[in-house]
């Protein structure tokens, strides 16, 4: 099939050498934006799901899989839109995940470990990298934000749970303490003093959702996946309405 002139023109544009715009500008963009994106994602996570991410005894099977995917997909979704629109890279979610993990890791290690001495096995941050890779992959395959919001968000929520339940597993083992059987994470939460966070503030599963055969996790995952779709569109609004649209207006004026 003959290639039309327009396609050839755009192909040439892809490989065009610019005099003043070299790879340094790429590095400047990716490296400087990483701090902003990491911080924005971490702050959003802390606003919506702070305690669930801070403590192992909050990482329960009911609320954690509902609240956290919603909180962390927002900025990832905005970046997915921006990076797909501008560079045609399926990287927004993964970029957010990597930048956020680096920021959070340094924060936990410095602020929670070195400054206030919490054991790191009590305050480790959740990872969204695996979930983000799947969400970016769905965007690459579908090339559609609508499909990514539905399929990608659902896969995101479920794979986020799987990838974080793996490190959580040792801390939900039963242990004997104060005349009772508790999980290791419960003991961490009580032994390591959290002065202004009395235990009754902990929002975790109280019952077992028996009407759903007691399968709390599955119910939460389905609900969490649905809520994540909402979070995805909140992110899309941020990406489209608060980032790209004002820039477009400014460029037109300029």
């Amino acid at each position, binding site marked *: 099939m003959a290639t039309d002139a327009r396609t050839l023109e755009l192909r040439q544009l892809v490989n065009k050498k610019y005099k003043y715009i070299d790879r340094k500008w790429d590095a400047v963009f990716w490296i400087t934006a990483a701090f902003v994106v990491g911080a924005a994602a971490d702050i959003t996570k802390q606003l919506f799901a702070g305690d669930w991410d801070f403590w192992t005894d909050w990482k329960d099977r009911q609320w954690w899989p509902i609240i956290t995917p919603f909180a962390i997909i927002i900025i990832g979704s905005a970046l997915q839109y921006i990076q797909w629109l501008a560079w045609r890279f399926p990287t927004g979610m993964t970029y957010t995940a990597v930048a956020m993990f680096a920021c959070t890791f340094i924060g936990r290690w410095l602020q929670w470990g070195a400054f206030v001495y919490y054991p*790191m096995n009590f305050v480790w*941050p959740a990872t969204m990298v695996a979930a983000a890779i799947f969400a970016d992959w769905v965007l690459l395959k579908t090339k559609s934000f609508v499909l990514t919001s539905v399929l990608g968000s659902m896969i995101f929520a479920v794979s986020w749970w799987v990838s974080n339940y*793996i490190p959580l597993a040792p801390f939900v083992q039963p242990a004997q303490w104060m005349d009772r059987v508790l999980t290791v994470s*419960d003991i961490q939460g009580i032994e390591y*003093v959290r002065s202004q966070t009395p235990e009754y503030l902990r929002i975790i599963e109280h019952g077992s959702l028996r009407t759903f055969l007691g399968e709390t996790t599955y119910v939460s995952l389905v609900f969490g996946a649905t809520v994540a779709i909402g979070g995805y569109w909140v992110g899309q609004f941020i990406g489209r309405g608060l980032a790209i649209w004002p820039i477009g207006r400014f460029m037109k004026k300029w």
Partner: protein
Amino acid sequence: MQRRYRRYFLAALLATMLLVTLAPAAQAHGEAAQEAFLRLRTVGWVNVRFSSDTVMQGETFTITGVAKIMESWPTTLAKGNPNTGYMGLIAPGPVVMLKERTMNGVSVPSRIDIKKGDIFEFSMTVAGRRVGRWHIHPSFSVKGAGTLLGPGMWINVKENPDGFKNEVQLVEAGGGPGDTINLENYQLPYVWIWLVITFFIGLAWMIYWTVPKRTVTNLAVTSQIPLNTDGMDYGLITKKDHRNMNWFAIGTLLLLLVGWIYQANAFPTKIPQQIIQFAPPQSALAENAGIAQTRNARATFDPDTDTVALSVDVTNTGTTPLTLTNFHASTLAYAVGGSPGPGVIAVTPQAEVAPGATTKLTLTTRDPAWRVEHLLPIGESQLLITGILVFRTGDGNTALSEVEAILQPRFE
């Protein structure tokens, strides 16, 4: 010019040094910042004792005492009906660890049911963790009200030459005792390895897209093509990219699968996090709570001499004489003695109330702590002083009685 800059620099250096060296370190937990009514009318503390002020890492000391949910609990807190409480510690981070907590004789790992008037004889076994000198308070948190502090003490935690562990015993699948683990670093390498592996997969994904490919200049093309295309026709994304990303996704999926199988085998027995809430049994002190009844309480404060004088009609409804031994108001504790001063309260006409009698007692204390601790509610909307009178009965028991006095301050 250079000289001027040098001067600026030296001035800034000097200012910084003065700030750092002259500023006192924060050495308490802000209890004096809480309003007086919060501390006087919510949770009363009686006979709080620390068994030691120096421990090694891992060594324990106990904090014992009595906490009373005051009958005079303000209607503005927890809707006037406190129902859930949590006894804990206030410390600058986890410098100590809570190893055991009993309330009225039973272990209380977590939150409890409470109501106005409840009396809890508590004991907390606390282990030293972080080397240093730390200010520790017992605390009682009430849902809807916040955390209320008890009397604090400085605790020295010394380094343990034998090392330090925080051991907990797991429960095996059959219910028997399992491995003993050290909570300080249990499975930390496992957690980090997992998190770092996922991080590097993400990093690899990013490197794949950003290092060999140009970024910023793509905008010249992407701005001219529809959003729902991957730009394959123009070489933005290639078939090879698709293929490689499939492998990335498959690899990530396999990693999750391997991780899942590993955790299922390595940690086969798991339970959900536990919520424990119950009402501890009644304290023996609660049985004697009605013996000493107080009425018509009034208090005065003389700022010149820091004197608080509290007069109250005490009725002994018991069958043996009551002798007033102590008075507690929030974190302040006084024993009945000769001349009033810090820690000592004088009682006139006498500390004893005969069975069936009503006696007007006047308690006088001369203590700057009332002002220093901001426990006089002058300037607040309720001029009241609330505390707990501790009586010894003729048969050797202890009876607590709450007193709420109208405060008549002499304004400065």
